[in-house]
């Protein structure tokens, strides 16, 4: 929260599509390893202050009191050498800036409403985001690349411990951490992984697998969370149960479910290669051609083509594309990022045009003016 670095940090935060989770751990991995399929791991902890109404019922005066004690705890976090944080009040940001943070997965949709007393503190490495007065007073998020939910939990829990030295949390010995929505009570822990599952989807097994996930207390959502579609064959799988299990049990449960999903995905991929190898190869190179040369790319098609390129890399059909570049493209091709790059508001056709230019340059390495 230092003043001198703040402007440069903010500029980087709002212009660069590179974030902690997009930097690929999987660069050096052999084909078939988990990190090719698991793009990112996230842990979120929900916390509230004891004796204060939850955010939706805060009066302006009490709201300020809550924010003041949260800010104090954040300063304590920095003093404890937990890295530098950039503190942003949502009201001070433009709608475009808020959308950029949402597209980078650094804030939730709730925070884009920019209500009174809503803020976010983002650690400089962008692996940690602390959301203030979202659905709960405090949401601690840790988002890392690849398949490492336990490491994300370790980081989030450490921050939780440090903040708790200055905050009195709403906690019940029987029910655990108390949250606005009963679905988060107990541990307040939501652990999720972002999965690229083209094999399962192309072999039409998704409905069956999603039903099975629900049976074991997990849910699957799209790339941008609740209510969003699984664009680009990307799913977010997370735990549903937060009470009655220890954090460790929850993480182990998620890990074992994801391991089984990965196994299914690998089997589906090899079946696809055996039965429809020529079709898959064609789709990968066709996608390369479209990404390199198309002049208009709607979001949905872009995500699908990007998925085939990633699959082509995993299967050794295509080479020479940087994986972290693919992750960053996921973000750069979103509406707010396209507008930010162009420096003006864009209608849908203009966005498709800019998205195509971006793909031409990044994938086709063609020199085109963006």
């Amino acid at each position, binding site marked *: 929260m230092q003043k001198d670095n703040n402007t440069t940090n903010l500029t980087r935060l709002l212009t660069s599509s590179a974030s902690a989770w997009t930097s690929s751990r999987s660069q050096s991995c052999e084909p078939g390893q988990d990190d090719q399929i698991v793009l990112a791991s996230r842990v979120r902890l929900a916390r509230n202050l004891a004796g204060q109404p939850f955010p939706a*019922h805060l009066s302006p005066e009490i709201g300020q009191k809550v924010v003041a004690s949260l800010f104090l705890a954040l300063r304590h976090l920095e003093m404890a050498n937990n890295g530098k944080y950039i503190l942003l009040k949502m009201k001070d940001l433009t709608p475009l800036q808020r959308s950029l943070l949402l597209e980078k997965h650094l804030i939730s949709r709730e925070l884009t409403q920019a209500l009174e007393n809503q803020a976010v503190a983002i650690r400089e490495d962008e692996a940690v985001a602390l959301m203030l007065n979202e659905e709960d007073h405090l949401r601690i998020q840790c988002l890392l690349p690849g398949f490492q939910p336990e490491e994300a939990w370790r980081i989030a829990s450490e921050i939780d411990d440090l903040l708790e030295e200055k905050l009195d949390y*709403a906690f019940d010995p029987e*029910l655990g951490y108390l949250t606005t929505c*009963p679905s988060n*009570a107990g541990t307040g822990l939501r652990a999720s992984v972002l999965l690229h599952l083209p094999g399962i989807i192309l072999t039409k097994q998704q409905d069956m697998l999603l039903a099975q996930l629900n049976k074991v207390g997990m849910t699957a959502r799209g790339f941008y969370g609740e209510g969003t579609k699984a664009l680009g064959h990307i799913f977010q799988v997370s735990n549903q149960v937060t009470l*009655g299990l220890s954090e460790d049990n929850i993480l182990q449960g998620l890990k074992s479910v994801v391991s089984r999903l990965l196994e299914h995905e690998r089997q589906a991929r090899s079946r696809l290669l055996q039965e429809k190898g020529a079709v898959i190869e064609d789709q990968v190179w066709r996608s390369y051609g479209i990404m390199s040369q198309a002049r208009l790319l709607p979001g949905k098609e872009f995500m699908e083509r990007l998925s085939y390129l990633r699959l082509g890399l995993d299967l050794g059909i295509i080479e020479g594309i940087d994986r972290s570049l693919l992750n960053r493209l996921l973000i750069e091709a979103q509406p707010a990022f396209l507008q930010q790059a162009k420096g003006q508001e864009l209608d849908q056709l203009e966005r498709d045009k800019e998205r195509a230019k971006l793909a031409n340059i990044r994938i086709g390495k063609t020199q085109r003016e963006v």
Partner: protein
Amino acid sequence: MQCQRCQQRPANVHIVQVNNGVKREEHVCQQCAAQMGLAAIGSLGQSNPLEKIFPNLFTPEAAPETDRACPHCGYSCQELRESGRLGCGDCYQYFSGEVQPVLQRIHNSLHHQGKIPRRLGGTLGRKRQLDDLRNQLARCVLDERFEEAARLRDQIREMEKRGE
């Protein structure tokens, strides 16, 4: 039965007078009873004086349940039912009848097994430790191991003193 005075309206007031051991009964209508200066409790359309003293005894039921509100944050039971969300930490206690079935349904549990804030960790940990010692003490007494029991008793007293 007709009013014995006016012989017109139906009699719905029963008057019993006892004078010098002589009992006299009369059946009259409300109007005639009023003319006689009699006002029977609850029968003449006048307010019941007891209602003013104990109003709640006379209302058929207490206020409907949906009007209940959390004494800490003012969140009402109806809001809770509509939104499925709570207003503050205290709501979990106050609306436990509504919330616990929901928690049970979502999580299949009502017992937190995870992390405990360090601040409370001390108190909760101490409580668990004390329960443990008391159990041990009871077992020692049953087994007539009195020396060990005395030692445990002192340990418990010591812990309780420190707790205060």
